[in-house]
């Protein structure tokens, strides 16, 4: 264990850079993902005709193993952050979309009826009624997406995107445990921490609507 700490202290700047890169990629990918998936999920929940083709596409995407999703982009986009982010977005969108859809569809129709009956406009109903009620399910999708993206970014190191995966790959090829564990333990801790934070947020959202 303290080989790891030794390694970190002697390579501090590389270490911190890797973390920043990793998190940056995550944030970019997740933002794009949410921007696409949540509104799309909402629309699909409302309009069945839209839902069918979209669901077919997402189901098809889900079946492709994540590694494949990354690597298939290489011939077209080369290596680096761009294909990584694209792959991550493709990776995470199905999850968030399906959960958003499920959350919105799961709201009792009477609640929406009474809101509309009171004269609330579509936008108001969406923002003040549907979103808060669907939030726990949406957060469920977000939580899973975050974990997938953080994990996916480690794989992205194989296509040169940087991040904590670099340490793991380096450690594997050099047979150096300390390097390997540096990357592994850090990303594991980050991932678990994010998961715990998000689960607390999810619990709060759940309690608020009960």
């Amino acid at each position, binding site marked *: 264990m303290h080989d790891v700490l030794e390694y970190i202290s002697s390579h501090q700047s590389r270490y911190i850079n890797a973390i920043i890169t990793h998190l940056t990629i995550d944030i970019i990918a997740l933002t794009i993902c949410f921007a696409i998936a949540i509104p799309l999920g909402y629309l699909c929940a409302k309009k069945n005709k839209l839902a069918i083709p979209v669901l077919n596409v997402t189901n098809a995407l889900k*079946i*492709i*193993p*994540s*590694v*494949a999703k990354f*690597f*298939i982009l*290489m*011939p077209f986009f080369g290596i680096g952050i761009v294909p990584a982010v694209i792959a991550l977005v493709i990776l995470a969108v199905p999850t968030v979309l399906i959960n958003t859809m499920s959350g919105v569809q799961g709201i009792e129709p009477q609640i929406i009826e009474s809101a509309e009956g009171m004269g609330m406009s579509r936008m108001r109903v969406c923002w003040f009624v549907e979103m808060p009620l669907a939030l726990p399910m949406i957060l469920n999708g977000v939580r899973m997406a975050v*974990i997938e993206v*953080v*994990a*996916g970014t*480690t*794989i992205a190191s*194989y*296509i040169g995107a940087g991040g904590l*995966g670099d340490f*793991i*790959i380096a*450690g*594997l090829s050099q047979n150096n*445990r300390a390097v*390997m*564990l540096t*990357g*592994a*333990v850090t*990303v*594991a801790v980050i*991932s*678990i921490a*994010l*998961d*715990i934070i998000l*689960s607390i947020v999810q619990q709060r959202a759940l309690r608020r609507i009960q």
Partner: protein
Amino acid sequence: MIRYLVRHWDDMLYMTWQHVQITLLAVLFAFIIAYAVAMLMYKYRFLTMPVNGICNAIFAIPTLAMFSILIPVTGLGADTAIVTLVLYNQFILTKSIYTAFTGIAPSVIESAEGMGMKESQIYREVKLPLALPGIMSGIKMSVVSTITMATLAATIGAGGLGVLLFQGIATRNWNQLLWGVILSTLLALLASTLLQKVEDYTLKKSRGEGSGKI
């Protein structure tokens, strides 16, 4: 592309077989463990929170990280991969199995008890058939996600279809890469379709859409 297939079809077959092996072994062990854990959770409800928490935490760890942490203990190769996959599958399987059993209408169990059926009888003839669809659903999800995760096993020398992917990337051999993508996707698709059919069948049976016995 075809040329690649012609030249390397035996390797690809072998790798597919490796992949299938890893998946099946992992799911099998994971299932046995998860089933036991789920039964304990079912009996002692207070276990639900801690078990879920642990499984959740394990699941949150990226696959590569998990490999790295386990390698010092179990070395390189298929063993580490299988152990990792077993651990990851706990999350899906324990939840699915637990939910499958708790989802049975309490009135059905109550009437069975009230009529004097023995615990083992109730388990065998009532609970199990009614929980089967949920269990199959969990197995389906578990197999498909294991196939996906197993592609990473190539990075630690366990073989499998991931080899095509990672080697293809490293050597910029797009044919190899493409075959890796195709085969792994096909495998996942095949498993998903087959198991879905099984799940649908058990669902029909449990809801009484088959034919009677007497």
